[in-house]
């Protein structure tokens, strides 16, 4: 779920927030305008428009709008799993859940872990993606598709499959990683079993899995950078670093923005990796915010979990909006 299902989330963030904060700098959205259809009996076709939208509106209402509102309300109640079949028989407890949250050591740890994870993984993923894209875009022609395909594979693979495989790869005795380290005389750590290395291992694994996506976005963006810019820079005697800083990075600004917001929004929700690989351990060192909420769901503490989810949603929304303010194109 963290791969594709959260992918759209960030794409949406990009478009949605971009419109509200950078109005006028983007092409106007064309939705809802159909000049060709405005003359021939519009009232009947307006009805048709609602009919065509009905499946989406039904699913949205039942599975998104209603649950979103219910979740907001639930955070102020003492709802437990035993109330699930009779959701209206719960008591309102005001701000109790939220007060408990801010004093909950485990939740605080989860928030700190999530912050570290996002701050470490986002730039690492972008850097790897940019490096791969620039290597592929540096004039080579043979095997280009082959390498691009290979680098993209982890991103389309089931996160559960990857998590199970990596748990074994990082096994202190039987895993490939420590086998290779031993071959060069290094005694590798216990990775996922050591609280000092567990979260870092997840950071590297996640960057490994996701950089192919950023690479594809950067490749598309690099192809639209005019070659003349680089030729002019060559004439001026600019070195590789100067060209990268003064041409590549500014020209890739929209792509960098998209990948930054997209990745950060996705990584803030990381859940499957610790769930399958560490169960949040050792000593809560890999417990993420989403996993902590998931655990509240597992233990039946719905009201408390919903309150935590409300806080997480608020943070993600504020964070995405802030990223757009800082990073939007300067015009």
């Amino acid at each position, binding site marked *: 779920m963290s791969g594709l299902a959260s992918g759209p989330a960030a794409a949406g963030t990009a478009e949605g927030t971009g419109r509200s904060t950078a109005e006028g700098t983007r092409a106007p959205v064309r939705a*809802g305008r159909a000049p060709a259809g405005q003359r021939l009996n519009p009232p009947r076709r307006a009805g048709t428009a609602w009919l065509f939208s009905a499946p989406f509106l039904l699913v949205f209402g039942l599975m998104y709008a209603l649950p979103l509102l219910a979740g907001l309300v639930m955070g102020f109640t003492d709802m437990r799993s035993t109330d699930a079949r009779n959701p209206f028989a719960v008591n309102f407890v005001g701000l109790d859940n939220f007060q408990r949250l801010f004093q909950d050591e485990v939740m605080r740890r989860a928030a700190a872990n999530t912050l570290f994870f996002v701050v470490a993984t986002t730039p690492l993923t972008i850097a790897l993606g940019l490096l791969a894209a620039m290597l592929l875009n540096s004039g080579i022609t043979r095997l280009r598709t082959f390498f691009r*395909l290979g680098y993209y594979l982890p991103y389309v693979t089931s996160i559960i*499959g990857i998590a199970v495989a990596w748990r074994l790869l990082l096994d202190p005795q039987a895993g490939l990683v420590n086998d290779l380290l031993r071959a060069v005389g290094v005694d590798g750590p216990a990775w996922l079993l050591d609280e000092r290395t567990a979260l870092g291992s997840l950071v590297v694994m996640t960057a490994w899995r996701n950089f192919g996506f950023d690479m594809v976005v950067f490749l598309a963006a690099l192809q639209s950078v005019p070659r003349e810019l680089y030729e002019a820079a060559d004439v001026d005697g600019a070195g590789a670093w100067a060209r990268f800083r003064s041409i590549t990075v500014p020209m890739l600004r929209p792509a960098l923005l998209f990948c930054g917001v997209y990745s950060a929004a996705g990584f803030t929700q990381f859940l499957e990796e610790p769930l399958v690989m560490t169960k949040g351990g050792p000593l809560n060192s890999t417990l993420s915010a989403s996993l902590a909420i998931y655990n509240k769901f597992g233990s039946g503490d719905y009201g408390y979990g919903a309150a935590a989810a409300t806080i997480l949603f608020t943070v993600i929304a504020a964070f995405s909006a802030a990223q757009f303010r800082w990073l939007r194109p300067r015009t």
Partner: protein
Amino acid sequence: MRNAGRLRAAGLYAALAIGLVFVAGPFVWTLLGSFKSDAEIRQEPPTFLPLRWITGNYAALFERMDVVTVTLNSAVVAVIVVASNLLFCSMVAYALTKLPFAAGRAVFGLVLLQMMVPAIVLLIPQFVTVASLGLADTYAGIVLPGLVTPLGVFLMRQFMADIPDELVHAARVDGSGEFRIFFRIVLPLCKPVLATLGLITFMGSWNAFVWPAVVAQRKEMYTLPVALASLSGRETVHYGLLLAGVIVVITPVLLLFVFLQRYFVQGVATAGLK
């Protein structure tokens, strides 16, 4: 000059190849390991190719996990989700781009809102909703939230906006109804983007974990990733078995991707850059 160019190319290919070893290494290790005995997986120093190729891990996997049932579950869920997205996302996109729709902007706003809400925020209330409807532990419950994905609406809208309005208008002048125009004229033009959308939703559905894990309560309703995660939670010694499980889960999507990758890349580029 020519030599410098060759040297540069050689360096580039070397860097790309080293990168590929890091990316593909874990996959190769998993595939080869699934044909090794547990003793060999633990052996020091490690072997690359299996000393003796065994299929016992796969046989054990079929014993410990009802592979046929859970694969069938994954397939049923994926087929429903893909078919529903192809049809319903296109319908919304048609309403948004080709019909006079005063509320179109508002509807598209809801699409964007749905994209923004993190899955974990909805998990508990969505489950309560599904349970209240009596749909816990059913296919209907598993597919319900994914029937019309916002990414799908987004992709289809992007594509349909570029189909000339004159085409639709001409058909109207000829007296065609909207459903006829939609199915006979617009959808056939959308084949490439429908392929992209079908592939993306298939992959999303096949790889989905958290929601199916929550809704499916009996083992007979598990999808492949749910069954593998459950096996991995119980199994701490028999590594070959788990590696075989990983191969069974990841192979269908990887094959599909390798053969149809250009549709994926188009989708990413469309979603990311427009």
